[in-house]
């Protein structure tokens, strides 16, 4: 057959039409649709038996129990532990996103040594043996030069075996410079020392579950203050039983919004209000006479001082709260039959507060007899379970040596650690008095106020060892990173210091094998101590960290391992007789008006005040946020990479700003480009800035997003305690 053009065309058309009637096109389309359901780049999670393992979360001081849901050897979910005394099954956003910390891109996956300039981010990995040998070399050199106190260490806390191992190693080595990340607990502990007169350390506790009137001086009750999940649960319980909560704050925080009333005092006059309330309570004879009479000293003087200086008229003038409101609030607080409780520590309580304010608030509680009584403020006896922490020979090793931060010195007798004073101490001397710094579970290069100065000070320290599991800001400044297992990979005791009304110790357990080439910091300390030998080596008689932990926990170990926590269910605080120390064994009222530092910045140049805005959705501690938690940050706080500032519309308009538009925010410490969000829920004249953003370290999900509060705000030293009590800074904002 001859194929000409015409029949070729016909054949072509015929073939095309014919194919359409065969199953071929259908089969192909079907294959295509199946292919779109199995794109190789869309993962298919491996299946397996699901089971739960228990542990304790260490991402904040809250100490929640967690149940870890596992498929084979993978953690797929973290949930709250229903039987845990702290969180009763509840869990916060950060806690849930733990697997993203475990498997996420920000982990330090092996020991690393800096190979570029500080902060340049150039690293080479090395073996654990080499890394530890390098630290040992340096330590031995310090020892040989007789400069052992030039070693310092920063931990998140001094509670628990791991910080205590660090502290022990430092002490035996001959350095008293063990420091901890500041928090409101520093202030509370100082208050307990001053007013309860106890030499030993007490934990502050709040019996929120039995309170029906809560007066909060700026505490973010449901925003991460105390043990966050417990606080949110308590808040719900208050709603159910119709307990009242009054918030004293300058903006409508979530706590304020959830409260029964907002008292927007002029910023910085919280202590005045507290004493104003005290004045009314005393003038109207509403105070607990049993307590003030038999169990306190200095009451007449206190009364004298308060009535003289803090009568409602004066306080109304100072705070901007109307006189009758002050009187009503005082009556309500002191009314018989009400179990009232006043608390302080701003926001999440991640900074200390002024002694003036803390003592004033504590005096309020004392006035109504709410010390160590149901529904009141308790001094909770520390579960003293680490016998080796107090050994005399360890203390002797550092006897007579002065701490660089002067904590515990005659100047600041009530403070245990003043990390906030470290940067200026380093900067004011020509050569850094600290030659070697350990940083474990802390990120001072981000969490301390005045970031620039902190980084400058760190820059002067010749050798920094970071024990961080993540590539955080401090690790970025380190010379050597010895990555710790993260909490899901390791054992650790977690004594909870979250204002609980009873002692609780949790146990973090390795629910998965270590994912990377990391090592438990406790083991690293043991290795270092053994490597140093001599007095130090002898002080660490354990095989490894787990051995140390098991032996330390002794009788409690089994219970901890099985249930994940130990607690004293029936704990009751000491009755008034016997609760207090000091010369008379009584509660000590103080009649001194303590000085308060002024807010940094000149009013003329900086007409507004910048305050932090803290939230459960943003971690502002040494733990960086996860992709999930960053996702929950609203666009009124972060837009693209730009931070959003909250400002009252009236103030905003006065400053020539427009809602949603760009502006430049300037403080004496620096300036940053922001967006503006007009919000009625903030006092005119103030601006609020989300705290916890603006990281310069970590990976792309966090780094460079927004601006860091601490970079714009400098420290403000309390003249009495030496603690940084910064709660804001003067600022200005202008349109771009």
């Amino acid at each position, binding site marked *: 057959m001859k194929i000409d053009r015409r029949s070729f065309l016909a054949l072509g058309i015929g073939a095309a039409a014919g194919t359409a009637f065969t199953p071929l096109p259908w089969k192909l389309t079907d294959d295509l649709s199946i292919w*779109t359901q199995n794109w190789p780049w869309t993962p298919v999670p491996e299946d397996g038996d699901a089971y739960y393992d228990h542990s304790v979360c260490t991402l904040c001081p809250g100490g929640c129990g967690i149940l870890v849901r596992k498929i084979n050897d993978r953690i797929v979910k973290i949930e709250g532990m229903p039987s845990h005394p702290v969180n009763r099954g509840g869990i916060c956003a950060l806690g849930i996103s733990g697997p993203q910390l475990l498997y996420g891109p920000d982990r330090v996956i092996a020991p690393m040594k800096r190979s570029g300039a500080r902060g340049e981010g150039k690293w080479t990995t090395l073996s654990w043996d080499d890394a530890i040998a390098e630290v040992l070399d340096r330590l031995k050199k310090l020892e040989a030069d007789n400069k052992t106190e030039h070693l310092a260490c920063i931990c998140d806390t001094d509670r628990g075996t791991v910080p205590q191992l660090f502290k022990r190693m430092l002490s035996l080595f001959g350095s008293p410079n063990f420091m901890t990340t500041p928090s409101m607990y520093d202030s509370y502990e100082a208050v307990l020392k001053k007013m309860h007169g106890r030499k030993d350390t007490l934990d502050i506790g709040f019996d929120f579950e039995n309170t029906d009137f809560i007066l909060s001086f700026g505490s973010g009750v449901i925003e991460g203050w105390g043990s966050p999940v417990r606080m949110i649960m308590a808040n719900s319980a208050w709603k159910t039983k119709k307990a009242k909560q009054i918030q004293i704050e300058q903006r409508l925080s979530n706590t304020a919004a959830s409260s029964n009333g907002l008292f927007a005092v002029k910023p910085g006059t919280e202590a005045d209000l507290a004493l104003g309330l005290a004045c009314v309570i005393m003038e109207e004879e509403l105070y607990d006479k049993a307590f003030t009479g038999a169990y306190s000293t200095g009451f007449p003087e206190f009364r004298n001082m308060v009535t003289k200086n803090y009568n409602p008229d004066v306080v109304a003038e100072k705070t901007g709260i109307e006189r009758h409101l002050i009187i009503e609030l005082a009556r309500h607080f002191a009314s018989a039959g009400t179990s009232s409780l006043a608390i302080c520590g701003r926001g999440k309580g991640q900074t200390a507060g002024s002694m003036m304010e803390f003592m004033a608030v504590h005096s309020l509680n004392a006035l109504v007899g709410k010390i160590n009584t149901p529904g009141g403020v308790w001094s909770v006896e520390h579960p003293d379970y680490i016998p080796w922490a107090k050994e005399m020979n360890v203390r002797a090793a550092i006897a007579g040596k002065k701490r660089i931060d002067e904590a515990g010195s005659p100047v600041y007798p009530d403070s245990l650690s003043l990390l906030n004073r470290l940067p200026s101490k380093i900067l004011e001397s020509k050569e850094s008095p600290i030659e070697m710094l350990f940083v474990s579970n802390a990120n001072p290069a981000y969490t301390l106020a005045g970031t620039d100065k902190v980084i400058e000070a760190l820059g002067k320290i010749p050798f920094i060892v970071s024990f961080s599991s993540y590539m955080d800001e401090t690790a970025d400044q380190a010379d050597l990173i010895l990555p710790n297992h993260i909490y899901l990979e390791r054992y650790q005791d977690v004594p909870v210091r979250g204002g609980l009304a009873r002692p609780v110790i949790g146990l973090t357990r390795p629910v998965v094998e270590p994912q990377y080439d990391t090592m438990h910091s406790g083991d690293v300390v043991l290795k270092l101590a053994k490597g140093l030998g001599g007095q130090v080596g002898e002080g660490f008689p354990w095989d490894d960290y787990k051995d140390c932990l098991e032996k330390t926990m002794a009788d409690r170990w089994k219970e901890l391992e099985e249930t994940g926590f130990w607690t004293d269910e029936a704990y009751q605080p000491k009755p008034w007789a016997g609760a207090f120390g000091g010369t008379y064994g009584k509660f000590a009222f103080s009649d001194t008006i303590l000085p308060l530092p002024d807010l940094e910045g000149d009013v003329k140049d900086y007409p507004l005040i910048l305050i932090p805005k803290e939230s459960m959705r943003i971690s502002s501690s040494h733990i960086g946020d996860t992709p999930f938690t960053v996702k929950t940050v609203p666009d009124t706080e972060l837009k693209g990479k730009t931070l959003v500032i909250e400002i009252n519309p009236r103030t905003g308009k006065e400053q020539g700003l427009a809602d949603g538009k760009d502006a430049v925010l300037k403080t004496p410490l620096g300036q940053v480009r922001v967006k503006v969000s007009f919000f009625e829920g903030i006092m005119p004249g103030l601006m609020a800035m989300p705290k916890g953003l603006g990281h310069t370290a970590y990976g792309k999900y966090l780094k460079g997003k927004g601006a860091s509060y601490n970079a714009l705000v400098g420290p403000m030293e309390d003249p009495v305690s030496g603690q940084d009590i910064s709660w804001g800074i003067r600022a200005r904002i202008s349109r771009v």
Partner: protein
Amino acid sequence: MDSAFIPKGVKRCSFGTFSLGMLVLTAIVFWGFYAAILCWLKGLNQTNMNDSYGFALWIWADLAVIAIGGGAFFTGLLRYVIGLDELKNIINFAVIVGFCCYCSAMLILAIDIGQPLRGWFIFWHANVHSMLTEVAFCLSLYLSVLAIEYIPILLENRKIDEVPFFHNLGHTMHGAMAVFAATGAFLSCFHQGSLGGVTGVLFGRPFGYREGIFVWPWTFFLYTWSAAACGPCFTMLTCKITEKISGKKLVKDNVYDLLGKISGWMIGTYMVAKIADTLYWAYVTSPSLGFAVMDYYNAHPLHHGIWILILEIVICGVLPAMILISRKGRANATLFTLATILAVIGVCLNRWVMVMTPMAMPVMTFDSWVSYFPSWQEVATTILPLAGGIMIVSLSFRYLPVFPQEQELNPVD
């Protein structure tokens, strides 16, 4: 060069000029296809759509081209079913323009879906309650009808016509055209309507929601009616543009006059219905859902202001209707063209508002208005079928005897 393919007795521009024009159009088409390929390979993140604006420029383009492509079915209906014989002089062109419009719609839909390779699920797993299912079925079937209507025109090409088989095929199909046209009109009524139903049934979106009869919201009928009314205007408009470009008269004025008059009355009656619908929606439906009518228009007076409604109904609705209904208006060539332009804008604007405002408008009281501006990929893929359509029309005009009156009106020496 290509004179052997050009119909006998008509004059066309030089092959060079034509090729140059084609080249420009081809470039635009390639640009459009590049954007389309980006969308297919990288996904719809190439657009500026978002979770609020799930329907945006593309869906509007779909609704608009189908509305203005309505000239094909309505002229077909008038010509083949009702038997208005004069319209044979413009029906070919109406079919071609309609075919282009429907091809555009199909192409845009193919880009608009997140999983184009599963697009056929709309047929396979069809949900008969969905207006979109109805749209898809009617659209694809009507596109095949248009293709069937286009084939005989294609077969009239001088060279193709020389082949006896094709010649006969053209002849037979022409004979059977009334059946196809009737089927097409039936399909078209439903899918124009179902496009109206797309927003009309959204009882979660008070701006778009309309009450109605049985399963059909009022927009169902309004869309069909407006497409029938304004579609022919677009046909006439494109026809006039073709006349302008080719520099000669192609269709006699009495044909324009007839179609214009019908359009005028259609637009007029559509306006009565549309105004009634708007009033009922504004004063009965909306308030029952908690919305005062000005709630829709006051929030963003610039983008979603009441001016759009006035523009759509008064300037692009009542006005062209009045022009086209009046004999004087039709007689004035400028006014006539203006009326067709306004009618086309009016129907496009109606589709625009019905797609965009329900997306932009918050329904939850604590939600906010959302703004949207298309990405270049969306714009390019929307221009792509426009350029493609011009190519098809140009090619058809050059090589096919589209206008029966052309020879008579432009005698070649």
